[in-house]
Structures are given as C-alpha cells and as structure tokens.
C-alpha cells in the first residue's frame, strides 16, 4: 500500500542502479512522483518503475520483457498493482484478490511464467503488507502466492528495506507427531 511508497521507489531505484532521484508524493492518496531533473516529474508508480527499468544502467531494461507479449503482460500487472492490490484494503477484496492471484500462479514460477520481471518486483512490494498480515493458516490457503512470494523475496537484491517474511515448506494444519 502506498504507506512507504517513497521507500518503495527508492528501493527500486537502488535495485536498478539508478541515480538517487528525489521522490515525493502527491495528494492525500499519496501518488509517488519522481523528479528527474530539469524540473521534470513523472507521476504514478507504474510509470516510474518502467522509467527506472528502461533507463537502468545495470541492465534493468530486460525486466521490461523482450517480446511485445511479455511487455503487455507486465503492463497489465503494473496496472493491477495500482488499481487492485493497493486498493484492496477491505478484507473481502483482499481475499478475492489473493484467491485470483493464487489460481493465476498455480502453474507459474514468476508472473510471466519462468523468468523474473518488473511485474514480480512491483507485485512483491505491493503484496508485502498483505502477506505480513496473513496467519500461517492463510498462507497455506494461498500457497501458490506464498510460494511465489518466498521465491521473489529471495531473489538477489529484491528485498531491500522490507523485512523477510517466514513461510513454512511443510503443511501445518494436518497431524504432526512429536
């Protein structure tokens, strides 16, 4: 959620090796703004993250996808992040979202299938506060999301300022011996 969206943008910039741009937020819904110099600003998390990846000196552009299909999919997940993930604060919305993502991720390692992309990075940041609040029981319920999340948080450099969340590999809610 947008609490800490400034930190998120900074950690993205850090991950992509970008220069230390100034980051502010706009309005009471805290839309992030990136000041790229010469009085120019970019508004919106999806736009900013694409810009940072595209201009990344450390080859972050490949995270934007190499085919038009990949690019389209990344674009839709960035949109999903700002329009759905950040706005599903009601419990029922959050549950519906997790259910949807859980079935989407059933047969995928990353959002694009087999390779890590900007979509994973942005969804990871957006879902962190949601996953934080889940009990182990719920994490087991949304196990594909949990598996993906654990995979991404261990991807080198991704975690940055966010605390690592704990996931268990074994299923808890069945019998277990002493």
């Amino acid at each position, binding site marked *: *959620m*947008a*609490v800490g969206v400034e930190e998120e943008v900074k950690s993205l910039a850090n991950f992509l090796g970008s220069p230390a741009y100034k980051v502010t937020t706009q309005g*009471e*819904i*805290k*839309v992030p703004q990136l000041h790229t110099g010469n009085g120019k600003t*970019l*508004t*919106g*998390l*999806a*736009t900013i993250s*694409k*810009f940072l990846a*595209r201009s990344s000196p450390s080859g972050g552009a490949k995270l934007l996808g190499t085919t*038009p*299909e990949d*690019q*389209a*999919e990344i*674009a*839709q997940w*960035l*949109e*999903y992040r*700002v*329009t*759905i993930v*950040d*706005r*599903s*604060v009601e419990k029922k*919305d959050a549950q519906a979202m997790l259910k949807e993502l859980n079935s989407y991720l059933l047969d995928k390692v990353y959002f694009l299938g087999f390779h890590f992309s900007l979509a994973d990075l942005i969804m990871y940041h957006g879902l962190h506060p949601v996953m934080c*609040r*889940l*009990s*182990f*029981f719920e994490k087991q319920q949304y196990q594909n999301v949990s598996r993906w999340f654990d995979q991404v948080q261990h991807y080198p450099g991704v975690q940055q300022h966010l*605390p*690592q969340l*704990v996931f268990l590999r074994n299923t*808890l*809610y*069945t*019998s*277990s*011996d*002493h």
Partner: protein
Amino acid sequence: MKLFTDPGNPHALKAVIASNIAGTVLQIQEVDRTRWTGNLPILELPSGRAIFSANAACRYLLGNKNTDDITVDEWLEWESSQLQPFLAPYIVACVGQGKKDNALFAAMFPLLEHLDKALKDRQYIVGTSVTAADIVLWSALFPLYGDSTKITDELTRYSGIVDWFQNLSTQEAFKSAIATVTKSKGVSACKASLLAQPLPLKPVIQSSPTKAQSEAGSTSSELSVSAEEVTAAISAFKDGKSPKPRTRTHPMFCRLRNWNTLYICGTDEYGTATETKALEEGLSPQQICDKYNRIHTEIYKWFEIDFDYFGRTTTPQQTVISQDIFWRLYKRNFLLTETVEQLKCQQCDKFLADRFVEGTCPLCNYDDARGDQCDKCGKLINATELKKPRCKLCNKTPVVQTSEHLFLDLPKLEPALSAFLNTIYPTDDWSNNAKVITRSWVRDGLKPRCITRDLKWGTPVPLEGFTEKVFYVWFDAPIGYLSITANYTDQWEKWWKNPEQVTLYNFMAKDNVPFHSVVFPCSLLGAEDNYTLVNHLQATEYLNYEDGKFSKSRGVGVFGNNAKDTGIPADIYRFYLLFVRPESQDSTFSWEDLMTKNNSELLNNLGNFVNRALMFVSNFFQGVMPAVEVTEEDGQLLAQINRELQAFLQCLEKVRLREGLVRILNISRLGNQYIQAQKPWVLVKGSPAEKARAGTVIGLAANVSCLLSVLVQPYMPATSSTIQQQLQAPPEVNILTDTFVCQLPAGHKIGKPSPLFQKLEASTMAELKKKFAGTQMERKEQEQKSKTPAQPVQNTPPVKVDQAEVDRLTAEVQKQGEAVRQLKTDKAEKKLVDAEVQKLLALKAQLAAAKGENPAEIIGGKGKKNKKGKK
C-alpha cells in the same frame, strides 16, 4: 487474435481502435455478461496468454505504431488508477440509470479539469499523432461525449476535451470502431455493459497515523464519559468498596482475583529423543533428564514464572496413574492390537527407531541415507525400505521383525469426543487456531493411534505380552499433568476428577494442540473416571526472531538460558514477550523493537508516571499521603480509568494478554495527561486552597500508581513489588476489584521513590543482535576470546554516599568554577585557563564518584540526564 467482450463495452473500443490503426485482424467473440464475473474485455494473444487490461491490450495491438513515450505511460496509468474510479460511477448513474448525480460529478470534476488543461490547443495528448493515450482516454469518455446531442452543459464547459474528442471521432479508425462495438447504435448500446461491469476500487486515502495511535494499538480514544459513570466512579473510589471479584483466568491473574488456583508445569522426559541425547552426551537417560530438568527449573525461576509446582514425568506416580488409565481403557475395549514391521538389531538387542538406522537409499542409491529421510534426494523413506540397512550404534545389519503394538481406538471414541467438544465450544474460550486445528482433525476422521514403543526409556506397559515395551510419549506425557499434581499434593484427585468445580486451562504452541484437544481427551473419556477435561485451550502462533526463525541448532536467537546473561532484567523480557505474544498471528522478536517498547512504553510512560507521582508525595508532602477531595474533574479521570480497568479484566478473562497490557499502559498514559493538565508543581506553591488541590491531584496519582502496581503484577512481578515497596503499600492491596478504589488513605507514609526502568541503548541492542545471530559454535569461540561480561543494564546497587565528602567536594567545585570564570573574563592566557579547567574536571569527577555516579557521564556532557520527577 480474439477479443472476448460483452456487447457495447466502451473498454473494448480501446482494443478495436488500436487494431484498426495497426491493421491487424481482430476477431470479436461475444461473452454473456451474466455468466462471467471477471474483467472484460480480454484479449487472447497468439501464444494463448490472456490480457485482461484493456489499456495493455491497446498498446499491444498498436504494435510498431506504439510510441515508447513515458508520457503515454503516465496518461494510461492516470486513466486506470485515477480517472476510472470516479468516472465509472458517474457514467453508470448518468448513462446507465439516466440519473444526474451532483456528488458523483463533483468527485470527477477535478479530473476532467486536469485533462482539459492538458488538451488546451492540442490535437493529440502526446506528440503530433494518435497514441495509446488518445485511444484510451477517448474510449473512456465515449459514454459521456459520444452522443453529441446529449452532452450536458457542465461537460461542454471543457472545450479542450470537446474539440479533441470530436476531432478524433472523425477519424476512420474511431468511426469504424464505434460501429463494431456498438453495432452502429452509439452510446445507447453501452447501457447494459455499463450496468454489469464491476466498479473500480477507490483509491485509499493515506493519513499518517498519529504517534499515540501507532504506539498503543487500541487506545483510550473515547475520552468522553457519561455523568453517571463519573458519579459512580467517584463514590466507588471514596467508599473503597467494590463488587466481589467474579472470574478466573490465567494463574497470576486468578490469584489476584482471589481464586483458588493451581499452576503446574513440568518436563516431559521419556522417549526416543532423550535416549538419543543421552547417547550423544555419554550419560544415562536419567542423568540427562536430571540435567535438563535442573536447567529448565532455573530458567523459569529466573523469569519468575511462579508455578505452584514444576515437576517431571519420570516419577512413580506417573507409572501408577498411566497404568491405571491404560487398564481402564483396556477393560472398556478401547485398545486394539496390530502388527508392525520394524528393524531390530540383534547385536544391541533392540528395535531401532528410524533415526538409529542408516543404509542405502532405495530411490537414489545414496549409501548414507538416514532411516527417516535421504539427505541426498530429500525423499522421506521408511526405515524398512532401506537397502543394506545398518545399526547406527554397532554398524551390524539389523533384521526386519514384526512387533505387536497397542493402538488407541480413536474412531470408537470419536462420538464421545465430539459430544464433549460441542458442549465446550459455545461457552469457553479457545484460541481460534486451537479450534481450527481440532475441528480439522475431527472432520478428517480419526484413525487408531499407536500408544506403545519398543524402547526402554518410558513408562512400562503392564499388559502380558507387551511388558518389554513402554508407552509412546504422546500417550504418556499429558498424563504428566495429573502425576505432577500428585507429586505436589495427595489431594490431586480433587483437581483432576472434579470437572464440576475445576476449570482447566492449557497453554501451548499450536503444534501441540491435537494432543491436548483430541488424543488426551479421548484417553480420559475412554477411561470413564470423571476426569477434568480441558475447558480453555489457548494456543499461540509462532514467534520469529529478527528477520528469520529462532533456531537452536544454528544458535540463532536468544533462548531462556541466554537471557540472563544479556543484562536485561527478566521483567523487561516478560513485558516485551507478552507485548508481542503471537496471539492471532505470527510475530517477531526484535532487539530494536524491544528497545523502543522499553524506552517509549516502560520508561517514558509507565515508569515516568509512577516516579513523578511518588516524587511529588515525597518532595511536596514529606512522603505522607495528602488528603484527597475528589472533584467532578477528577471524576472524569476515575471513570476513564474504570473503563480501562474493566476492559483489562475482560481481556484477561478471555486470555487476551497482549491487549490487557495495552490497557495498563493506557491507564498510565491517562495519569500522565492528568498530571500534565493539573500542574501540581505550580499549585503546591500557591494559596492554601491551591495547595490542598495539589494534594488531591498528587494523592490520586499515587493511588493510580498503586492500582498499576497490582495490574502489572502478572506481567512484571519484580516491578510490581518495587512500586509497592516504594509506596509502602500493604499486601492487602494485591487484589483486583471491578472498579478503582482508594487504597492509600491520607496520612499513609510512603517509602523512597526511585526510577523503575533503565533506558536501553541502541549500541547494546546492536551488540546483542550480533551476538545471537551466528551459530552456536562461533558464539562459543567469541565467548572464549573475550571473557568480558555484557554491560549490565540493571540498576546497580547504590554506593554508600559519604555526605560530608560530597559537601566538601561540591564547595571545591564551586570555588574552582568561579576561578575559571574569573580567568576567562580577565582574558587570561589560554594555557593557564586550560590548566584550571582540567583541575575543575578532576574535581567534578571526584564529586561524581563520591555520589556514586558514573564520572564519565558527568564529564561527557552537560545536563545530559533529564531529571525524572519533574515535567
């Protein structure tokens, strides 16, 4: 490519226009809206992947006509995340339902204003030709501007938008898209689709929480109290009477509520784990148990966990009671016999538990697989499946032998268990996870459970043919509660065979739930001897350490036996661990958080309040409680405290220990605010009436401190007794009543106040974090290198102060100070001044030492320590 959409969906325009411009063939497949609840339209890509975002589809379909301009990105994001949440509801009301809704228009109006401004005197939003930004925004506004005969006045005001919209509408790609999507019917064809589509979620307004709220979680935000509450609070406080205590819960709280409470625990000592550990350490199982029981006992003692009795399972009573329960189950036909295949080492003459066998993995042929799991392929295996198995102790080949075992017939006991659970669920307080786990066990169907093992270290099975065997720990261990009580008192049956009068609480982590909620109750129900069964099962989630898990084997985290050496008092650990108790979800132990909670809640809130209250009594009234004349205004405070107190009692009855702690901190927060508002340090210097008023304020504050000392007792027993010592409170105050009553009357003499808590420093926390991060081995090495103990943080006992010496040095310091100032005003030579300053510092250090303070601190900085006790 295929586009799935419902008829007349304006978002479908985004894709169709793009494909018209790029010249791609787009097949449109109509979807019945009533059968599809998700997003529409959906674009199916050649690879079979699906795009559910119309904006992403639009850009994709534009293909190489797509500009990579970042401004286009910005507009697309703006449309989906900012415009749509307010535009969509307006369009639904206006076009869909034919209503004019001014509130919805007002919400959307700043957004149209923004777009209009950007479009002034421009043909296209970005650049000089059509981009995805134009297509997406044009499509979004189509329901509003698409029918030129129906544009309302408020919309025509935006001439920038109107001109731009109409210009695009004349372009072929747009015209033919309208024809395709609306079947040439125009805006009116959109109605059904608009009404059916789910509305976008609204942006979340991010207000930064105020500090007080974020610190305390649930706070005393409802500050208004009714007049009745105030009057009742005042009379209760004056009368010193309160309705009788009426409830019971966790042990120290129960004792405070004056209930007859038995609080027991113990070490469960039988089983394979003990045998293995004994072999590892070269001791007998009994020696191992003695050793660890002693360690556990000491740790609990240090933490002041005040069991009535801390026992163990290796006692004769355990054998007597277990065997009795066994015989009763046997005679009532609740036991089954089954044959189990097991490996037996003939050399050692024992059946081998899985972890005592090694061999070749049957799956990957790794030749060093363990009996339960192969380290190479990671698969779980049965010890009997190992190729070339060998005994871990003597390396001889074991043989497969069958062994008869006894099983508890849980399916047969299930009806009795379900009946029992149904009686307790509605009325009693189980933690949610305990309920969920128990229900899932019962729902999945119970299976017979083996209760015997081929071991030596355990309670012997008394049945003929099984006398070489012992009971499995999970049959035996819960019986320990009974036998431990029997070791404490020969009246144990009054506790354990008395369900009418005794209420049983079990506390544990959630992994032990099934054994306490299913297996053990089944044993007791089957034994049919009127046993006391668990009423309240309280299970916690897991506590993590910093950013990972506690791990004993890797030495990550601080464990009971290390806590003592950190120099942090047991009370602080108790406070923090209860503050982060994982009651409903996992929580984390973090040193920094511990420091923050200590410094903000204990030191600055609770400790500060109690210390100020007592210092005032001591300094202004010579340690004698002043007379208290309660006014309406004070009644407000009393009523608010009563509210928190009642919430506290309720929390503890329901075993919500965390929230109970928050309530306590709320009371001291109220107290701090009260003192701050009343300013007794000013009043006390005023007229006689004002001085009397100061007495009331201070007397009340001291009584609130007394109440706090009782409330914190279950959480921080040492702190509780320190406060009571400083108050010289009689032991009778240690009872919890339903309302706050005056316990310290006028004329009561209090003791000497001193600060309750010490500040924790970030550097200490960093050291501790480092110390408990590594492996056990590294830590041991480090310990050997530097044998210096950690800096103690606890109150050091005051050094005996020689008052005469202090007075002499104080005079000296003053004199020397004067001399230095004189030299400085005379502009004496720097060398000379420096020399005199050195002398002054030396004198100050001597003075500090004489007072029993840390000289370095005095020299280090001026006025560093804020005086507690005043503002």
